[in-house]
């Protein structure tokens, strides 16, 4: 059976088993992946996989099942398991299968890979790294091409088909000199063309330079309250945490989010705008549909004012708030007008932080952790790399303490981020 026939068979089976409504996704993927370990080629992988996931509503309750087999027996068993799950769950009026949203086919990315050229780009990257950044040791580098095709169908008539392919890279590296090892750092990117050298992607050049300059870091002396300048990567991970803790299903449904009553009100400094834009041309193979809904770009925070929550259809119906128009995480923070160099020049005392290694931030937004790949700034100048230094604060306060947003931005194929400077962060060393 092809994917469409498999999806149709699954929906028919679920209806025969008593489903009031159902949805099914069927997908096939193939991946070619090249690996480098310890600076040397180590492994080539070819992966083929299948995915069948189904959701069912019966008597007002929901059950789901997922398998990677496509035989009639396996599909029948998965259907029975999903039905049994629903039959034993509590009915909940907020559960449903998404209503009819049309029939559409999406094709994106590059559908024919060039694995030999991918290999050549890696070889070039390793050579460039050795020649231009001799202190850098590539602990692990992975480049791949992944192609996926699939179909989503539900009993309300929606049909979304997808065919896409894209390249990706992921690097993990550190600087070394003699027996001295620097802190590891990493970068990721998604892309559809092999036209550019990997050294010019994923901020590699800046990150390699910074790692090479960080081999002899020092802890900050004592404790002070200062400015945290978050790199684009760090800002992106901060936004995941902020939305996860304050805007997602969990804390909105149980009513513990400190932003529960803040829609339309100021939650961040003026000038701070956060959007999620999977359809933006900067995003490679962005989300086209999720949960039976076609994805659209959306705004979470506009000029500091909270505009929406990151709620699924269930979360929205449960709480009465609006459903998020996508669930992609393709985040953009709008750049400011000040160059990064000017922001740094205006900081009396603080740190530029590239990576945060910390405990899971509390639901109330408290965070603490180690500043990694970071530089101390004093009187407007970068005075050196730091280690064994912790940053502590609250994301609630941080969002309202935005000192500046840079005009400089970086893009990894998943979104676009500037640097952002936040005041009032506790920085403690030894």
């Amino acid at each position, binding site marked *: 059976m092809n994917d469409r026939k498999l999806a149709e068979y699954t929906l028919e089976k679920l209806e025969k088993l008593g489903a009031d409504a159902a949805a099914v996704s069927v997908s096939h993927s193939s991946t070619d992946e090249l690996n480098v*370990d310890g600076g*040397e*080629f*180590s*492994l*080539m*992988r*070819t*992966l*083929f*996989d*299948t995915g069948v*996931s189904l959701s069912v509503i019966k008597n007002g309750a929901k*059950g*789901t099942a997922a*398998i*990677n*087999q496509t035989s009639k027996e396996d599909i029948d068993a*998965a259907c029975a*398991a*999903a039905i*049994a*799950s*629903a039959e*034993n769950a*509590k009915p909940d009026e907020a559960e449903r299968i998404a209503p009819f949203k049309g029939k559409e086919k999406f094709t994106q990315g590059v559908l024919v890979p060039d694995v030999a050229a991918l290999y050549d780009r890696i070889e070039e990257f390793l050579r460039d790294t050795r020649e231009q950044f001799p202190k850098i040791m*590539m*602990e*692990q580098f992975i480049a791949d091409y992944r192609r996926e095709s699939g179909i989503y169908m539900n009993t309300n008539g929606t049909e979304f088909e997808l065919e896409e392919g894209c390249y990706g890279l992921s690097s993990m590296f*550190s600087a070394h000199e003699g*027996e001295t*090892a*620097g*802190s*590891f750092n990493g970068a990721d990117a998604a892309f559809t063309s092999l036209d550019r050298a990997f050294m010019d992607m994923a901020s590699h050049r800046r990150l390699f330079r910074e790692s090479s300059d960080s081999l002899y870091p020092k802890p900050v002396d004592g*404790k002070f309250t200062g400015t945290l300048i978050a790199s684009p990567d760090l800002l992106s991970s901060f936004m995941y945490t902020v939305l996860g803790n304050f805007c997602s*299903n*969990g804390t909105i*449904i*149980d*009513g*513990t989010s400190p932003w529960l009553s803040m829609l339309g009100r100021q939650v961040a400094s003026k000038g701070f705008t956060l959007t999620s834009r999977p359809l933006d041309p900067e995003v490679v193979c962005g989300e086209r549909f999720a949960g039976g809904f076609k994805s659209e770009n959306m705004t979470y925070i506009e000029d500091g004012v909270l505009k929406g929550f990151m709620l699924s259809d269930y979360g929205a119906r449960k709480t009465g708030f609006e459903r998020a128009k996508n669930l992609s995480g393709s985040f953009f923070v709008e750049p400011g007008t000040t160059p990064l160099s000017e922001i740094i020049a205006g900081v009396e005392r603080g740190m530029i932080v590239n990576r945060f*290694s*910390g*405990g*899971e931030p*509390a*639901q109330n937004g*408290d965070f*603490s*952790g*180690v500043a*990694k790949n970071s530089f101390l700034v004093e009187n407007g100048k970068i005075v050196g790399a730091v280690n*064994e230094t*912790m*940053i*502590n604060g609250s994301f609630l306060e941080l969002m309202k303490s935005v000192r500046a947003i840079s005009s400089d931005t970086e893009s990894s194929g998943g979104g676009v981020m500037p640097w952002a400077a936040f005041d009032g962060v*506790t920085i*403690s060393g*030894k």
Partner: protein
Amino acid sequence: MISDRISEMKGLMGAGHTEIRAQRSTTRRVGVLKGNVVSNVRSETMGVCARVYRSGVYGFASGAEYSPEAVRDILAAAQRNAEFMDTRVGKGKPALPVIPAQKLTFDPGFTDPEQKKYLDFVLELDAYLEKTYPALASRSVSAYADSMEKLLVTNDGADGYSILPRSYVYVTLTAPTSDGSTVELFTVLGGQDAGCFDKRYTSIEPFKAEIDRLYGDVMRKAEGVYAEAGLRDVILGPNLAGMIAHEAVGHTVEADLVLGGSVAAHLLGKPVASELVTMVDYAHTLSSGKQAPLPVYVDDEGTPASDEVLIKDGILVGYMNSRESAQHFGMEPHGNARAFAFSDEPLIRMRNTGIVPGTSKLEDMIASIDNGYYLTETGNGQADTTGEFMFGVNMGFEIKNGKLGRAIRDTTVSGVAFEMLKSVTALSDDDVWVSSGFCGKKQPMPVGMGGPAFKCKINIGGR
């Protein structure tokens, strides 16, 4: 049980290390948030993979279809990939040393209860929480079970069959604070070892005492204070010892990370800890004679599993190896090459990593600190090539003049592993093991970790 469609492929393996693995993995999950069923999922993956070694490089392929023809195709694809890499890279390394042929089996028995079992338990427990603790701001209860069933054949090592089921119940309680905020705390009921859900969670009664302790702690945390940031004297409770073993030391002595530049590359044979500290990555049996939380008898490249002593009386004495890295370092592999899913290649992973208990009593250790902290619960952690590590602390208490004081809010501790371990001055005489976590390293992997409480100096985050 996975049917054997791979042994017959031995004749097609050719020269050079080759492994074929068929694997089925299952996941069952039910989540209830404040009375609402927010997840109710059964998922299962099945497939086969092959990996082929050629002169210093590997070719790998995997597919979901598990027929004799598909296995043959996957093996051929792995051989082509190995050939491509060898032709392009040309490392010219020698073949991996052969391991005597044998078949190793681990089958503790596997049952796969229907979803109703999970739902009934979780809903009953949630109803108990709602009734018993009305002061809570929120609560969540999740049942989770997974299993990995693996069938392995190799052409130059051990063959194997294993099935490892795990099941846990996670409870998170959220308490209101006087400033209008909230704090939360979680525990894993039955998180010490692995097993099947229907054998371990037959009634909520045995877990009520643990839930009562959790409630008491979260209410104290709601009145807690921020830790005072800086380098402090601390007692790390036994629940944190495993995190030290895993994050602070374990990752730095994984041989692939050593080759990638870990600080441990230059420390073999040197003192890295107080002589009180001995640390072992156990394969399947702890030094007490008890079964390790997540036993491994053969790894996924055909190496019979045995213990790897990493630190002996404060001296770094070993790395965790794959067959290839062991050959590089001139060491013996002890079965640390493990893969998560059928589509994953074996990587060097920890198994059951712990610090051997000492002779001190926990209460005496607490009494010996004038001004510090007793840290009791953790969540996540991370290590660095430099040996710098951190992990989150979800529960802890001040120690003032040898007595426990106020609870503290969530924080993070950090240090440089081989400096911090030299500051250890006491280890308690008991240990605690946990098995509910996943380690992340390209692939996730269930790992066990454990150890005693210990006294040391560590950098703590706060205000």
